[in-house]
């Protein structure tokens, strides 16, 4: 296998890690105001993701950094072209971290309610926007090959121009919003919601667990339907490879199984199957893309290919050694922390006294 293909797969793995892990963090956040009934239950919900959310988020930083290292043209074209969408995501991630970490520092109800409201918004917005972004990759974007002075290279001259010209997403923010990409937003939002509900059912006990399990059973058919329509539409209209049917089927079967297992209240299986479904969905996106990393909807010749975007073989070799050495270690110690905090949490364990100091002394 060529190293650039290996790195295409590794980038997919990093995104899978991010979307599976932060998916349920987002889900818990999206439900924070609606599923937990009172302060005690909200604290239980927050403590289930408490030790993990930060490590989960590093998968995003690694995916970003690895894209920069292995596919600089992809990183540059995507991040500058999707500027406003990324700006919104960044603002939301910053707010969400502040809401998570600073909420418990003051024992005042208004303080907590305000941070919780911010938390809910800052979980919903990226949950939708990540889907929009990935759907754009599948669908293709307004990409052209442009010289430094701004002249657009004609499609048949692209191959000769790439020494000086580069791929640019010239469409701007609103070109990223189409019926298909908005459906992509619905898909990630519903998948993360289901994932969050399943995670809460798995990690809590008592009344909250039962309500979470009921909600997961209600949500799972919705995420199945949204994902099925999205993937079938994408496969028929945009996918560049028939092989992509494979992960599509895996995702569909897993999500269908989740509908059954959530009904049977088999929380462990629901969680595993839902995570596999998200992984398969990401794998489908990457296989539907291949051999492009950013297809153009203007002209096929403007599409950014894996080969064009890739770093040199030397850099990829170095990065392969680094990644294959460190990633297994990271997965091992991160999995270990999940093992340490494996116990279910209940409101009975939450002390009656609120955490944090009084607001009145905050001056």
């Amino acid at each position, binding site marked *: 296998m060529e190293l650039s293909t290996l790195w295409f797969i590794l980038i997919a793995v990093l995104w899978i890690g991010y979307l599976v892990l932060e998916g349920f963090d987002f889900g818990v956040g999206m439900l924070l105001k609606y599923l937990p009934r009172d302060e005690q239950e909200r604290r239980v919900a927050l403590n289930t993701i408490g030790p993990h959310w930060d490590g989960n988020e590093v998968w995003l930083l690694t995916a970003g950094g690895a894209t920069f290292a292995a596919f600089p043209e992809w990183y*540059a074209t995507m991040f500058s072209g999707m500027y406003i969408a990324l700006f919104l995501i960044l603002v939301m991630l910053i707010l969400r971290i502040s809401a*998570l970490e600073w909420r418990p*520092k003051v024992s005042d109800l208004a303080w907590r309610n305000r941070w919780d409201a911010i938390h809910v918004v800052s979980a919903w917005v990226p949950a939708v926007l990540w889907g929009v972004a990935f759907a754009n990759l599948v669908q293709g974007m307004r990409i052209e090959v442009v010289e430094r002075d701004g002249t657009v290279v004609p499609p048949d001259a692209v191959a000769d121009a*790439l020494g000086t010209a580069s791929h640019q997403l010239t469409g701007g923010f609103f070109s990223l919003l189409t019926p298909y990409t908005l459906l992509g937003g619905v898909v990630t939002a519903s998948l993360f919601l289901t994932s969050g509900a399943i995670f809460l059912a798995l990690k809590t006990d008592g009344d909250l667990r039962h309500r979470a399990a009921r909600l997961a059973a209600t949500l799972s058919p919705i995420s199945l339907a949204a994902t099925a329509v999205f993937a079938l539409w994408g496969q028929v209209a945009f996918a560049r490879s028939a092989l992509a049917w494979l992960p599509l089927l895996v995702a569909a079967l897993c999500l269908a199984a989740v509908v059954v297992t959530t009904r049977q209240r088999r929380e462990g299986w629901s969680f595993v199957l839902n995570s596999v479904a998200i992984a398969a969905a990401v794998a489908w996106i990457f296989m539907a893309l291949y051999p492009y990393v950013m297809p153009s909807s203007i002209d096929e010749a403007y599409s950014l290919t894996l080969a064009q975007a890739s*770093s040199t073989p030397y*850099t990829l070799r170095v990065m392969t050694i680094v990644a294959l050495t460190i990633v297994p270690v*990271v997965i091992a110690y991160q999995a270990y922390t999940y093992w340490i905090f494996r116990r279910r949490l209940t409101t*009975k364990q939450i002390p009656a006294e609120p955490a944090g100091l009084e607001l009145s002394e905050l001056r």
Partner: protein
Amino acid sequence: MDALDLARWQFGITTVYHFILVPLTIGLTPLVALMQTFWYRTGKEHWLKLTKFFGKLLIINFALGVATGIVQEFQFGMNWSEYSRMVGDVFGAPLAIEALAAFFLESVFLGLWIFGWNRIPKGLHLAAIWCAAIGVNLSAYWILVANSFMQHPVGAEFNPDTGRAELVNFAALITNPTAVSAFMHVITAAFLTAGTFVTGIAIWWMVRSVRKGDHAQALTVWRPALLFGLVTVIASGLAVGGTGHHQAQLMFEQQPMKMASAEALCETTAGAPFSILTIGRLGSNNCGDTTPILELPGVTSFLATNTFTAELPGVLDLQEEKTELYADQFGTDVEYVPNLMVTYWSFRLMIGFAGFSAALALALLWYLRKDKVLGMPWLATLGLIAIPAPFLANSFGWIFTEMGRQPWVVHPNPASPVDFVYMLTQDGVSTVVSPGTVLASMIGFTLLYGALGVVWYLLMARYTREGVDNRANQMPPSATGAELPMSFVY
């Protein structure tokens, strides 16, 4: 302002802000780990109290550092896409390794530490904070490898066919002498920051305890904390000076223009002085217009070369030399001199603020000599005033080193100035992002950071004022009646 200026302002604002938080995390995490180690080894209660007290402050600070750090990873692509294309083959690798080898370590293990009190064995819990401490320090190294490639590119070649820099020697990239030198300086500065933080808070609390009549707390808790902070400040203060001098010598070899700009040295001079104060229109980059008031003869030459009499090239000669060198590529009207007012003053403010913090430590040592505890209110005030000083020194240091590199985003390596890797900042900016978009995101980030900064300050002040004997540092009572309650942090 055009998109270039706005993108530069945005990078400056977000990066300086991020780096207010980062040095405290880099320095304080190992200091808290040491406090916990003292407790683990001696079983003395005050070290546990101090671990929890400074641990709380560390966590409040860490949260905002992490949050603002995410922006850093993405804004190269957002605002500097052409720079990213040019250097991604080289520059992306240390960023990716930073996330893999350092961010995971600090994030996962800090989470384990925060939530692990009473839940995991003491030794493992101690190992968790040490892993986090190693992680934050490693992250500094990798990001400085990346930054040093912009200061002094090594280990790469320029490929004229693609117009890109290509990595050819990874070992050379990560052992870049610029990176090693910068790392030593940044790490010692981080310890100076955290040491001053501990010292300032400890003296403030010692005086407060004495005046509340709680001599026992002043003696058993705050005196050890104060001594610990003082040792850190003095050791790191000396090391900051030494590593800074080493960096200045390297800078003189690699970026003579930056060295000359630090002194705003217009004409080539033997035995260049270090002026403490200069008046005139430095901002105009107009060399005839300034009057140095107070000068230490030969000191800038000493900083750069270790001898007081060495000849330093002035910015006018250097400008002429560069104009000639790059006339074919960039024309003859490129300004190769950075903004002298910024470089001149940021260099002085960096040294001045760092020196202030070291001077405070010496003063405190003098007083601690005869008294076991101290109760003078002015010392408490001085302690609080000293805390921001190293933070400001850090900011000015980075402003100096980044502004002094201009107009380059990748400064040419003097060993091979014309056929190697270099790039003007103006060529690195994204071409598809409109000035309005950058302006909007810049205003957005600035307002958001400003608001979060207020909350950060309030929380830090509130938890500092709470002290060690209050609820903030105690385990909540167990709701289930179990002997050891689980800690619910949220």
